């Protein structure tokens, strides 16, 4: 069985300050982990993915995430928020064994204040 928990439903940051969106997961197998972004009235876009290579993963638009097995976490970070980062972010886990179903977190809405 697998699950993913996004600890914050809403995060608000000022433009130019760091972003931290938290994600914890559980998985029966070695997981693949992903972050997706959804801008208002837009489709889902892959930001970055971890598939058991480097634990620090860099994605598009300056985002990165670190896989920490001991903490079962995959938090998304960005050093400096931009207004265009305002969107909803989804953390996703997929077991690399077993049924390999994709499971989405409930999402975190990021607000960027000018």
């Amino acid at each position: 069985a697998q699950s993913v928990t996004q600890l914050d439903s809403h995060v608000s940051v000022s433009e130019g300050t760091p972003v931290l969106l938290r994600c914890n997961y559980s998985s029966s197998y070695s997981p693949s982990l992903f972050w997706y972004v959804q801008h208002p009235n837009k489709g889902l876009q892959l930001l970055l993915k971890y598939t058991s290579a480097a634990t620090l993963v860099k994605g598009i638009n300056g985002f990165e995430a670190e896989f920490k097995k001991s903490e079962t976490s995959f938090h998304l970070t960005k050093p400096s928020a931009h207004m265009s980062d305002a969107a909803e972010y989804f953390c996703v886990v997929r077991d690399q064994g077993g049924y390999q179903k994709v499971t989405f977190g409930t999402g975190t809405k990021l607000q960027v204040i000018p």
Partner: protein
Amino acid sequence: GAGVSQSPSNKVTEKGKDVELRCDPISGHTALYWYRQSLGQGLEFLIYFQGNSAPDKSGLPSDRFSAERTGGSVSTLTIQRTQQEDSAVYLCASSLRQGANTEAFFGQGTRLTVV
């Protein structure tokens, strides 16, 4: 095709009517998912097809909802006797089963409005 294709992009239907939503996954993708996203809500898992295995239907909200996947490719989600609470964006995604590139690719969705 190059991406996941869903049709129609928008559908307005009267309460009580049946609707069919179609998803064409990326060629060669053995996994196919249906999700529902209501206004201002996250993604609600509906059903998962993986190759020839029995589908995971655990997310279907009621017996009015059903889905099939013919020939391991195109999938149809059917909602019978639609209700107003069925109004949402229905998203389809597909992925490879194994390998490093195992992310799900999403279609643009079908916006269903039940009036």
